[in-house]
């Protein structure tokens, strides 16, 4: 059980908390402390809106441990509206054909359908087709 590793990531996982570069205003996710655009220090926290669009997608049938009971599932790279790309699963897709460019929004879901009922449940971001309201 990787307890501290998942615990440390809770802000990123639950709320897409990344960073903003004070020098060039670049938004950074995942957080990396050094701005990938200008190379200056970027340690100011920034919460992403969770809105974005599908950059690329595919389906996993042959999965690693922790995911093998959830197959098939859709994996994607999502382009967040603030700029960065993020790797995440798409969810709630039934009847929706996934397309590159499809608008999606962040939801918090179980990341691992752990086969082991004794282990901790890992929650984190996934994306679903935008719901109208």
């Amino acid at each position, binding site marked *: 059980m990787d307890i501290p590793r998942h615990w440390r990531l809770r802000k990123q996982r639950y709320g897409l908390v990344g960073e903003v570069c004070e020098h060039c205003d670049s938004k950074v996710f995942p957080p990396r402390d050094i701005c990938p655009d200008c190379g200056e220090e970027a340690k100011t926290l920034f919460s992403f809106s969770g809105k974005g669009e599908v950059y690329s997608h595919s389906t996993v*049938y042959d999965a690693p441990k922790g995911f093998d009971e959830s197959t098939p599932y859709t994996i994607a790279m999502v382009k967040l509206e603030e700029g960065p790309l993020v790797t995440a699963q798409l969810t709630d897709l039934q009847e929706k054909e996934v397309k590159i460019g499809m608008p999606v929004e962040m939801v918090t879901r179980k990341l691992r359908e752990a086969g082991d009922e004794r282990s901790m449940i890992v929650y984190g971001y996934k994306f679903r087709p935008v719901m109208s309201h």
Partner: protein
Amino acid sequence: MENNKIHTVVISGLGQTSVGEHWDISLRELAFFAIEKALVNNRGGYPQALYLANMLAPALSHQSHLATMVADFSGLRGIEATTIEASGASGGMAFRQGYMAVASGLVDSVIVAGVEKLTEQTSVNVNSAFATNTDSEYEADHGLTPTSQAALLMKRYIYEYDVPDFAFSGFPVVAHANGASNKNAMFQRAIKPESYQRAGFVSEPLNMFDVAPYADGAAAVILTRAELVADLPEIPTVSVSGSSAVIDTLALHDRQNPIVFNAAKESIAKVYAQSGLGHSDIDLFELFDAYSIFGALSLEAAGFSEAGKGWELAQDGRINLDGEIPISTFGGLKARGYPGGATGVYQIVEAATQLMGLAEENQVKGAKNALVQSLGGPASTAVTHILSQIER
């Protein structure tokens, strides 16, 4: 790098095992078989160091401290030994460490070996181990696997360049044609383009022929300072004329443009600069075709094709053994098989075999310079070498 300050390094011994499912051979035995072959045909000095490439033995074979175990088992007690891990680029990276050691003059001769057993565990465990090569917290924890990541790349590539259906078929067709006459290859049978078109998806749009098979294998190369190796009259001597390693972001999503292999491109620019050679001098390219999309992106990174056109090069025989830029001359990862960290050493062994004129049915006629590139992840690490015949 200024060549006049370093020693010329030549390949003085080669060894490889067949690639496949070695159920009855252990990790240490497999490594030893390749090392033994290289030592038997070595015409340089006795190796003073072992650089051992491996990617997943701690996870799949419950063995770290691997180089010591392999050196010990191979009867190389008392030498220096260390394990090199750089994901799929481990073999290339170990070769570069060996090259740097000899070129620096600190040692006269080294053995570079690669070993991997990917059949030790069931596929779920192998998938889990491979997933650790991605950014574990931001990629693998979300269910990404290297194979599905290649599918993401291929999907975006097809979208951006408006590539037709089955455009990538040229890569596996050529790889399997070349593997057919390689007695060490995992698959020794040519495939038809129609088979590619009928194949089921592994991770859409990636089908089973777009993915290199995980396998067991070991390969070894002995590197020696040039002046310590006697020329043989009938076989050309092969030197390392360029060596470089460049990294990109570990995670694919951290790149401005994921469908360009920048590290691959930069490391090739470096070996050209070091060797003084260019595109027109390269007679064959052992690229890292773990997935056919990697083949296309590697050809583009190397400048053999413009962006978005790498797949076209794989059509009409242009990457065949007698084509304009032969690739995967012994089957590549796709047909020879993908034995993890050993792969890069196989690539070197195969390129050297070509330049020594010993490739038999797979021979690229008149090959003098070979470009060899190993990739870790989606070119998160790129290690490139140029091997050249030494002019007599």
